[in-house]
C-alpha cells in the first residue's frame, strides 16, 4: 500500500558531489576547542591535503584571524562569514552565506591552479542544540569538553547524540576540573548508541591519531561517493511502524572507534 505521506517525504540521495571538497562542519558550545581542532587538523593534514576554512563568529573574523595567525594555512584559505547575531540560522535554516563562502573558496583555489580536498566550517560557538544542516556539510563533528562538566555527555542533545563524530575535548584538564574522562567518554558512547567518540587532548598523540583516522575515513568515503550527509536534527529520534520508503539518512559507514593501545 502506498504511504499517503510519500508524496512530500523526500528521499535522501547520496551526495552527487563527486569532485568537490569534503565539507566538514565543526560545531559545539563556546570555547570547547573548535578553532583549536581546526588548527590541529590543518597542521597535521595540510602537507598532504588542500584545505580551506570558513569561520562563523560573533564578531566577524576573530576565529579566522586566530587560525590565520597560527600559520598552519595560507591566510587566503581562511574566510569569515558574518552571522548577524544568528549563528544558529547561518548553519541550519539559511545556509546561503556559508554555501557562497565555501563555493567562493573552492573557486578561488581552483583559479590559483589547485583544488581543495577539505573545507572545514566552524560554527559560531552556540549552544548544545545547534547542528549543521546536511545541505551545508557532508559530515560534522560536535565538540564538547571536560571543563563543561562530566554530565554534559550523558544529558545528550542532537549534536552529542547524532553528530557524525563526538569529540570530548581537553581530557588533559580532567583531573583539574574533577571529571572522570573515561566515564565521560563511556557516557558519551552510551548516549550515542555506540556511535563514534574521540576523547581528545592535543597533548595526547594517540587521541590525535584517532581523530585523524576518523577524518581520513570520511575523506575516503566522500571520494568513494558513499558518504551520505545525515542530520543530527533538532528533533528527538523517532521510529516508524516499519512502513517502506522511510529510510532515514543514517551514514552507512559509521566506522567505530578502532581499538588502539596506549
Amino acid at each position: 500500500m502506498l504511504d499517503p505521506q510519500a508524496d512530500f517525504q523526500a528521499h535522501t540521495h547520496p551526495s552527487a558531489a563527486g569532485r568537490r571538497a569534503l565539507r566538514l562542519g565543526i560545531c559545539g558550545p563556546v570555547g570547547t576547542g573548535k578553532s583549536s581542532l581546526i588548527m590541529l587538523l590543518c597542521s597535521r593534514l595540510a602537507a598532504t591535503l588542500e584545505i580551506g576554512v570558513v569561520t562563523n563568529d560573533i564578531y566577524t573574523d576573530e576565529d579566522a584571524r586566530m587560525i590565520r595567525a597560527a600559520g598552519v594555512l595560507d591566510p587566503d584559505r581562511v574566510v569569515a562569514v558574518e552571522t548577524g547575531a544568528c549563528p544558529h540560522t547561518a548553519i541550519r535554516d539559511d545556509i546561503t552565506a556559508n554555501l557562497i563562502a565555501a563555493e567562493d573558496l573552492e573557486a578561488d583555489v581552483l583559479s590559483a591552479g589547485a583544488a581543495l580536498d577539505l573545507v572545514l566550517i566552524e560554527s559560531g560557538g552556540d549552544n548544545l542544540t545547534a547542528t549543521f544542516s546536511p545541505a551545508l556539510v557532508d559530515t560534522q563533528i560536535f565538540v564538547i569538553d571536560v571543563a563543561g562538566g562530566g554530565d554534559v555527555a550523558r544529558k545528550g542533545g542532537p549534536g552529542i547524540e547524532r553528530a557524525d563524530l563526538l569529540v570530548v575535548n581537553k581530557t588533559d584538564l580532567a583531573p583539574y576540573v574533577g571529571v572522570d574522562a573515561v566515564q565521560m567518554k563511556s557516557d558519551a558512547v552510551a548516549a550515542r548508541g555506540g556511535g563514534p567518540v574521540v576523547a581528545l587532548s592535543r597533548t595526547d598523540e594517540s587521541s590525535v591519531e584517532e581523530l585523524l583516522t576518523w577524518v581520513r575515513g570520511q575523506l575516503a568515503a566522500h571520494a568513494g561517493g558513499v558518504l551520505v550527509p545525515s542530520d543530527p536534527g533538532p528533533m528527538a529520534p523517532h521510529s516508524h511502524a516499519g512502513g517502506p520508503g522511510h529510510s532515514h539518512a543514517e551514514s552507512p559507514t559509521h566506522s567505530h572507534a578502532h581499538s588502539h593501545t596506549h
Partner: protein
Amino acid sequence: MTPRDLLPPMASERPLHPEALALLLADARLPVAGHTQSAGLEPALVAGPVDVPAYVALRLRTVTRTEAATAVVARAAVLGGTSLEAVQDAWAVRTPSAAMRRTSRVMGRALVRLAPRLVAAEHVALLPCEPVRPVVLGLLAAVGGLDAATTARIVGYDDIQTVVAAALKLTPLDPAEATGWVVRAFPALEGLVAGVVDLACPEEIPARNAPVIEDHAERHAHTTRRLFSA
C-alpha cells in the same frame, strides 16, 4: 533530506501567481542570508546614536530609491528585450561605495541561487555577469508578472524591514513599537514607488547618494568586529 529534494524546479508551464511571488520575495524567511544584513544600521550605530525612523526615511529618499529605480528599469529592460548589462552599469556608476556594490553582488547571488526554482532557467540566462540584487529582482519581477510599482515596493519594503529587524537585534525594544516604525514609513515608501514607477531606461535611474551612509559602508567593510555583513 535537503531543501533541494523537497522543492522540484518550477516548470515554466506552471506560472506563479504574481502576488504570491511578491509575498515570497518580501518574506524574511526567504533564504537569501537576510540575517547577515543591517542595511547600514550597524555602522551608523557605531558612529553614534541613530533615530531609526529618520534613518529609514533617509534611505528611502536616497540609496534605496536608486536601488528601487534599478529594479524597475531592469524589469522594463527584460520586458522590452534590451540589455541588463546597461542597467547594471547605470546602477554601478550611481553607487559610488565599492563596499555597497560588493554587498549588492553577494545579495544578488543569493537570489540567483533561488531563481531557477522561481522561473524557467532560460530567463536566468539573461542576467549579466555578477548580477546585483536589484537587477536580479527586476528580472524575477518581469518574468513573474509583477508590475513596476510592486517591484519598487518590494525593494523599499525590504529595506525598511532590514533596518528595523537589525534595530531589534542591536538596540532591543518592544517589537510592536518597531512595527509601528515600519507602518509609519509606508507613506514615504509610496513616495519612493511614485518616484520610480515610470522609469524605463538606464539613464533615468536617479543618482540618489547619501555620502554618510556610503562612508559608513566603507568603514564597516574594514572593521574587524562586526555582527552584520553590511
